[in-house]
């Protein structure tokens, strides 16, 4: 047992400043998180009139009360729908995450039909796809509560149309992988959306409101001139008794949710996974709440990553690997909720020693089968004559190779800077970690805005050969400002997450819970033996 001895001074001015800065960002996160629920809830009357439950009420009824829930893509779509920071609604008309139904861990997607009638958006498509990928990777049943106006024709893009087909392919893959796809048809599901129930293994349709058709009455009239009522074209009762698309007919949303719970219960899902060993563990010796005061919002101020790990790991018990070698790359072995986990963190840029240390450490984790958590806070691999000559490229590559090819679960947290190849070497999104979450202070980019401006200025000066005249200098200053803004705006955690580059933004103080939940998720996936088949289950 090696309990880390914290050097943190919670009474210090820097702690207080860091904490105040971080709490402001957390407030912003909470405010963003609250936008979609508030907008959706404002449509309550419309739902009530139709005898429907609100999307979040449906979610409340399918999930086990009090069991944990992890949102996927909570900030997705922020600043994608509009450039106006105060008006943008994160979430993309989808609620998605991992939750429990009758004790079975499931990937859950709920169309937020309180917003744009649940019309598909780019961000919504991303959340749907991520939930499907997670279900496939972690071997989870896939649950979808469908009520969508379909694709918004006014926002049509051919790319979205073509790529969007993959969402249906994923359903077929899930079914073939032995991962049941279960959907409730709460409202309409038109055109492409009709394949959501079509490609589900189990369909529960709600009488009256549930509808599915390849072409709704307007498109049908436009396409063939045929005039049909929507209930005869694709009403729930028709699908339950004539077309056979629906397997269970529910009187209303609440019944549909109850039926879904029963369908999941009857899977006997956890009979196919060895139960986890009972684990005893101690909470961290230092309060996770203090994380807010450790991390300076300005990533250029260094701090000891171990202080963070000590507030995430069980008992703050950390085994430091090669602490005297490659000292700014921190490799720690620890446990979270009693499960073995290894951390790689940064106390600064990665140097050749740090890269080789990390590469070895990663291979050791692969050998032991221990999940690796990357906690990114690096401005990249060190540059300069000394480092280039010391083989920084090859050592960095070695690390990137290891990061890419280890076979253990990889979980990435963007907790500060994520610049340059550091993003790659620390398992950025391009490296397909199992999950990737960000803190609200995280900053991502190929380089910082200031650096970019400086680079461009140096290049410009080099090209000009002579000294710059006043006007050229003005242009250069302007360009510098533009570049700084261009880079910095895109580097903010909310922007990055809004642009669908991670699985969401979390409260840093909640990292232990998020990580614990993820470790349980990946561990359960490893223990599970589903019953795959070749083609998926056909709807008869």
């Amino acid at each position, binding site marked *: 047992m090696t309990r880390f001895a914290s050097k943190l001074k919670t009474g210090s001015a820097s702690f207080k400043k860091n904490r105040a800065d971080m709490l402001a960002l957390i407030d912003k996160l*909470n405010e963003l*998180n*609250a936008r979609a*629920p508030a907008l959706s809830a404002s449509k309550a009357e419309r739902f009530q009139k139709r005898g429907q439950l609100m999307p*979040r*009420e449906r*979610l*409340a*009824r399918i*999930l*086990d*009360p*009090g*069991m*944990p*829930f*992890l*949102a996927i893509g*909570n900030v997705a779509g922020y600043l994608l729908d509009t450039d106006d920071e105060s008006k943008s609604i994160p979430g993309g008309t989808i609620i998605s*995450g991992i*939750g*429990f139904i*009758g*004790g*079975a*861990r499931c990937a859950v997607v709920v169309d937020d039909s309180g917003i744009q009638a649940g019309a598909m958006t780019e961000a919504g498509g991303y959340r749907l796809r991520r939930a499907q990928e997670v279900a496939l990777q972690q071997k989870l049943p896939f649950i979808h509560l469908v009520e969508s106006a379909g694709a918004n024709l006014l926002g049509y893009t051919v790319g979205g149309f073509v790529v969007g087909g993959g969402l249906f392919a994923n359903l077929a893959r899930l079914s073939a992988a032995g991962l049941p796809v279960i959907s409730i048809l709460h409202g309409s599901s038109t055109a492409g959306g009709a394949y959501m129930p079509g490609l589900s293994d189990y369909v529960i349709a709600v009488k009256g409101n549930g509808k599915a058709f390849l072409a709704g009455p307007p498109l049908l009239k436009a396409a063939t001139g045929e005039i049909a009522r929507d209930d005869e074209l694709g009403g729930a009762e028709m699908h339950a008794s004539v077309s056979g698309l629906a397997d269970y*007919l*529910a*009187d*209303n949303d*609440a*019944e549909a*949710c*109850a*039926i879904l719970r*029963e369908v999941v219960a009857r899977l006997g899902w*956890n009979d196919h*996974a*060895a*139960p*986890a*060993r*009972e*684990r005893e*563990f101690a*909470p961290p010796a230092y309060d996770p709440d203090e994380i807010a005061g450790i991390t300076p919002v300005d990533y250029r101020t260094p701090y000891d990553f171990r202080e963070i790990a000590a507030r995430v790991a069980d008992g703050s018990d950390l085994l430091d690997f090669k602490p005297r070698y490659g000292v700014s790359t921190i490799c720690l072995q620890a446990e979270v*909720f*009693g499960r073995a986990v290894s951390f790689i963190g940064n106390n600064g840029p990665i140097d050749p020693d740090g890269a080789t240390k990390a590469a070895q450490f990663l291979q050791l984790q692969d050998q032991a089968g221990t999940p690796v958590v990357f906690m990114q806070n690096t401005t990249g691999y060190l540059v300069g004559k000394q480092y280039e000559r010391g083989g920084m490229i090859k050592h960095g590559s070695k690390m990137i190779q290891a990061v890419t090819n280890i076979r253990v679960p990889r979980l990435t947290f963007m907790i500060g800077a994520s610049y340059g190849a550091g993003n790659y070497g620390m398992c950025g999104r391009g490296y397909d970690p199992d999950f990737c979450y960000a803190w609200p202070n995280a900053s991502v980019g190929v380089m910082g805005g200031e650096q970019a401006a400086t680079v461009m200025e140096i290049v410009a000066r080099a090209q000009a050969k002579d000294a710059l005249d006043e006007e050229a200098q003005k242009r250069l200053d302007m360009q510098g400002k533009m570049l700084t803004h261009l880079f910095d705006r895109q580097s903010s955690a909310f922007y990055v997450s809004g642009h669908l580059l991670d699985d*969401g933004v*979390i409260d840093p103080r*909640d990292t232990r*819970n*998020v990580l*614990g*939940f993820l470790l*349980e998720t990946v561990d*359960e996936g490893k*223990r599970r033996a589903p019953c795959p088949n070749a083609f998926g289950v056909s709807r008869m």
Partner: protein
Amino acid sequence: MAKKINSLLVANRGEIAVRIFETAKRLGIKTIAVYSDIDAGAMHVEMADRAVAIGGAAASESYLVAERIIEAAKSAGADAIHPGYGFLSENASFARAVRDAGLIFVGPSAEAIEIMGDKARAKRAMIAAGVPVIPGYQDDDQTDEALCREAGKIGFPLIVKAAAGGGGKGMRLVDDAVKLNDALAAARAEAQAAFGSSVLLLEKAISDARHVEIQIFGDEAGNYVHLGERDCSAQRRSQKIIEEAPSPGVNEKLRSAMGAAAINAARAVDYAGAGTVEFLLGPEDEFYFLEMNTRIQVEHPVTECVTGFDLVEWQLRVAEGVNLPAAQSDIELNCHAIEARLYAEDPAAGFLPASGDILLFETDESVRVDSGVRTGDAVSPYYDPMIAKITAYGADREDARNKLVSALRKTVVLGLATNRDFLLELLTSDAFAAGRMTTRYVEARGVYEPSSISGDEFLLASTILFVLERDDAFQRSTGIAVDLLNWSSGAPLASAFDFEIENERRTVSLTPLHDGGVMIDGHEIEVAFCSDEEALLVIDGEAQSVFFTRTESALYIASETRIFTAMTSLAKASAAEAASGLVTAPMHGVVSEICVAEGDKVAEGDRLCILEAMKMRHEIAAPKAGPVASIHAETGAQIASGDIILEIGDLEKSA
């Protein structure tokens, strides 16, 4: 003439059989139980050394069949039979047959039973012995003419009683001459049905009277003592529900006078054993002989508490021919005891007896509990629905009353209607607290209406269901850290529960808090403790202890102030039924009305039938439209939760 009892058969069931066995075991006497078919697993059977089956569930096929019981006693080698109370306990021919079979009958002589069992004869005997009796008529001329004439002499109000009766059957209070003829006819019919004799007697009704009874004991040597009185004024339907000793209306002088009168009554019939002489005590301390019960009384525990004697032991000793273990001067009444009878019955429905499974039965350890049932047992419609007698013993009346109230609040019976909340209301009423209870109090205060639900019921039900469902999911998961219970990565995630509590339907939205508590409608509820049947919840800072049990369709909850049922799984139940067209009972109950006939076409939501259960009349509505294909239940029938009531066919097929 000592005849040692080595082996005792108790010709009874339930709490009194258990009570008698306890003393027998303590005295080293071998115990033999008898049981009807449905009592095979009953508590009294399990605790006896031997048990003999004696026939069908109906008492007339088992506990009332003298020959079978005597046969059982012989086959099991019993040398004595204790009849308990009820059943054959006051049946003179049974007493005779037992003795004729060479067995000891734990009770008085057949002759004493016979005389006291005939109210008219008893009254004449008492008049002869100088025991004060209520002015009335108890002669053989049973014509309406004679009865009306005598009634005129006695004056109104008066009581018409079955001469052979007891327990309020065949009894009518008549406050006006014009109502007399109807009352006579009704009482006759009831008396004939209940006792096989339509002989009636008339008695002046004493208003504002207390029911005070004296416990007496006699032995074969002719010694008599009384063990003070019991006050049994709290009654419903002329049956006692709360009894106490001593009576708040009896002082030492009155006690001596009543005791002497009671001993006189006993001596008049050469009484040996335990007996109870019941008196009406008027407001001016005037008392009148009512009747004598020639058996151990239900309410004997209060006397045991204040005297310190084991009355069953005395009964056995006297039956063995041993002299009374104490003289009058040895008997003192110390402190105060109050007993409440916990019944499976519905106070709001005129105290209609209830039956069904006891899903949970918990009692408070600080008081004496006499009971013959346990969690998991059933209260059957065949026998008296008493579940338990709860007896509190305190330094004085107020102390005993407070202890009883506290104990009752901790007494939990879930699964069927009980009078617990009614008892609590009665015990805390001003009239009872002040010792001013009269036999007509309950009747006079009108129909019992439980206080309407406050809303707290929904808080309790949803918090408990939340914890149960969460813990169930937790158990069924493949292992998550408890730290993650109530956790969500974003804002807390609400849960929704649908309940129906006493006909009020609500959907409760509950938000888990990461500290383990929950938030409902602005109320913060801390779950301090929650097992699978007991919880300690702190609602807005106020702690509440509750017991509960859960079935597929209901959550039964007992708080300290209220026992109620929260119907759950409403959506699921109706969905399944809608699909199948099968209409099933949501809970145990009696089908009080079937509103449709086979072949009727019903619309969705139409009333199909009414099920009476848990203090409520439940309307069962059609889950879907269609023709009534078949009716499975019968009006008046007791049905269990999940039983099919009727079936609705498909609309298309019928068209």
